[in-house]
């Protein structure tokens, strides 16, 4: 079945071919003449056959059938074709209208305006309109699904990118930490080796100290014994010195007695001298004796004094000896006490040295084991470091892949947004709905307030603007959540620019149709953004201005 027969089957009254218009009656007349002619030719041939001896009845039958056919054709076929020819202009006019609607619908469809394409199919026949609406609805649904999917893909890519970035950052930190831990473990291993070596030396020194402690303990024991013996001897010396002191006192008493005797003798000699003097010449010899006795007493007294002095020195020495022996005894007691304390301390030190030696040996063994474990840990950490580095590289690749995926999602989104859908997520639909709202607002100030309100409720719109056809800026509305003060001041520079040179203005003014401009560099923040713009119409249908919205590519997933 070709397209023409299909169309004829769908559209009742559609002519077979435009080239045969007005010739149906003529064709029907030619057909009737042919039928008459064929009937006559057949009769003549059958008449020739019957003259040659054949039966005559076939000739009559054929003639009757031919007459019936001619009559029937004249009554039924010819009028049919005549009526058909009369209906042809009406069908042609209807076909032309349908063709125009269909072409317009397909043009809208080709422009991606599924809403208007549906509007243009309303004049089509029911079945064709249903099929066209179903196709448009399916396409619209598909475009919406593509939009949603692209947003989800981009959001997922953002999430993956964020996670990958965090993981990459974490992996980098982890790699750095692993390197630091590896260095620390290597240092720990070196330190453990030194500790093991020092512990071995300490164990050896402690063993020597223990042996020295044994020798020292024995020496101190001997010293204690010697000091005890010295103390005994000092006590004996003190006892003897005390005895000498006692004897010295006896000697003093003897000396006192001798002194007294010498004094008595001296006095006696003086009295003798007195008596000798009284005796006159007879007493002169006696006076000599008395004088000798006095001298003898004096010498005795001097000797006693000498002995007393010597005895004083001796007593002083004895007292000094006693004091010295007492101090020596006390010092010996202190030395003995200290020696005993030293003995206890040395014994404690010896035990401590023994314990230290054993602990040091255990430390040495433990640190050797720790050294081995540290080596294994270092090897493992190096492997971990390699794995982490590979993982970091993989995560960076994943991040770049997510970036590419995000870009791809944006491209898909833009492709899907090239369709004008009856959906709040369709930017063309959004911009046109805004345009319809703004068209109803009378003045520029009121339009600015209305656009400000519209932008405020569209978190993904960075900037909304209304431009005159002369390239002037009529209204600028910023999204204060997306643009800071500096960026807003930069965006205000647009007022000084003739926007007719901007690509989006050129694109929308080409067909005065809602247009989506692919990403380009924004004037306000030098970031990539894309624009959707649509003409704003006057009540008479003429273009009054251009409404545009800028959407930053970093925030387009909020659509």
């Amino acid at each position, binding site marked *: 079945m070709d397209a023409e027969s299909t169309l004829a089957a769908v559209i009742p009254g559609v002519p077979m071919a435009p080239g045969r218009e007005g010739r149906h009656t003529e064709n029907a007349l030619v057909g009737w003449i042919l039928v008459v002619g064929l009937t006559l030719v057949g009769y003549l041939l059958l008449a020739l056959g019957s003259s040659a001896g054949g039966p005559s009845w076939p000739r009559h039958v054929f003639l009757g059938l031919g007459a019936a056919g001619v009559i029937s054709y004249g009554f039924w076929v010819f009028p049919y074709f005549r009526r058909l020819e009369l209906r042809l202009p009406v069908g042609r006019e209807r076909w032309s209208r349908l063709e125009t609607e269909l072409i317009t619908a397909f043009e809208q469809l080709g422009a991606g305006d599924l809403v208007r394409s549906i509007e243009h199919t309303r004049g089509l026949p029911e079945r064709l309109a249903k099929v066209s609406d179903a196709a448009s609805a399916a396409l619209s649904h598909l475009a919406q699904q593509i939009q949603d999917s692209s947003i989800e893909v981009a959001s997922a890519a953002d999430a993956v990118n964020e996670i990958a970035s965090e993981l990459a950052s974490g992996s980098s930190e982890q790699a750095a930490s692993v390197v630091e831990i590896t260095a620390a473990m290597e240092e720990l291993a070196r330190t453990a080796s030194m500790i093991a070596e020092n512990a071995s030396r300490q164990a050896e020194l402690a063993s020597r100290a223990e042996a020295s402690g044994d020798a020292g303990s024995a020496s101190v024991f001997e010293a204690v014994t010697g000091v005890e013996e010295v103390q005994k001897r000092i006590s004996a010396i003190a006892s003897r010195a005390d005895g000498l002191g006692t004897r010295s006192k006896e000697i003093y008493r003897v000396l006192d007695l001798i002194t007294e005797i010498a004094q008595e003798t001296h*006095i006696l000699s003086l009295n003798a001298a007195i008596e000798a003097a009284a005796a006159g010449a007879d007493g002169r010899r006696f006076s000599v004796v008395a004088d000798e006795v006095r001298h003898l007493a004096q010498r005795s007294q001097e000797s006693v004094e000498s002995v007393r002095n010597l005895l004083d020195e001796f007593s002083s020495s004895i007292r000094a000896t006693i004091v010295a022996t007492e101090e020596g005894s006390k010092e010996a007691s202190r030395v003995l006490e200290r020696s005993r304390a030293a003995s206890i301390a040395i014994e404690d030190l010896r035990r401590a040295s023994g314990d230290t030696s054993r602990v040091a040996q255990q430390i040495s063994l433990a640190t050797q084991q720790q050294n081995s474990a540290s080596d294994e840990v270092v090897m493992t950490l190096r492997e971990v470091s390699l794995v982490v580095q590979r993982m970091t590289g993989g995560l960076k690749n994943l991040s770049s892949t997510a970036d590419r995926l995000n870009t791809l999602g944006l491209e898909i989104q833009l492709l899907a947004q090239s369709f004008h859908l009856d959906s709040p997520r369709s930017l063309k639909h959004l911009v046109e709905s805004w345009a319809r709202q703004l068209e109803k607002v009378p003045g520029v100030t009121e339009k600015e307030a209305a656009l400000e309100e519209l932008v405020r409720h569209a978190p993904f719109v960075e900037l909304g603007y209304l431009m005159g056809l002369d390239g002037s800026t009529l209204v600028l509305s910023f999204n204060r959540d997306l643009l800071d003060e500096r960026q807003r001041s930069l965006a205000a520079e647009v007022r000084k620019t003739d926007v007719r040179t901007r690509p989006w203005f050129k694109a929308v003014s080409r067909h005065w149709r809602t247009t989506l401009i692919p990403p380009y560099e924004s004037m306000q923040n030098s970031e990539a953004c894309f624009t959707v713009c649509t003409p704003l119409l006057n009540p008479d249908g003429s273009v009054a201005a251009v409404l545009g919205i800028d959407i930053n590519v970093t925030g387009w997933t909020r659509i």
Partner: protein
Amino acid sequence: MSDLLDQAESRARREEGTHLLVRAGEYSCALPLALVRRVVRALTVHPLPGAAGELEGLAEFGGEPLPVLNLARLVSSPPGANPSYPVTVVVWVGPPEARETIGLSADAALEVVHVPAGSMVAGDGGFVQGEAPVGGEVVRVLNLEALGNEA
């Protein structure tokens, strides 16, 4: 008693210049040997109530009471070191016609010396007759007769 006094006078004349050297405080005093009766260890003195400064008291000598004077105070000597063997010198004092026996407490009895009359420097003319060098030391030569007059 009178015999003894006579003997003393005669001995004084014979023994003129011979003295008994005693220590009284820081001074050394020479007592005429002729008037010295006895040298004894320091007697036990019983102080007399209301007695003068020089009179130490009464002692017992030969069964009789004997007044004892402090020689150091008599010669106004500063007190010396604590004597190791004090003595009491029993002497006759006073003029020849009225001699009395008294005791002079001294720190020590030293020796019998000869004091030449020419070497003596005149003293106060009283109890201290004069001063004379003896053995490199200046001694006070006492006049016991003058002590009897003062007493």
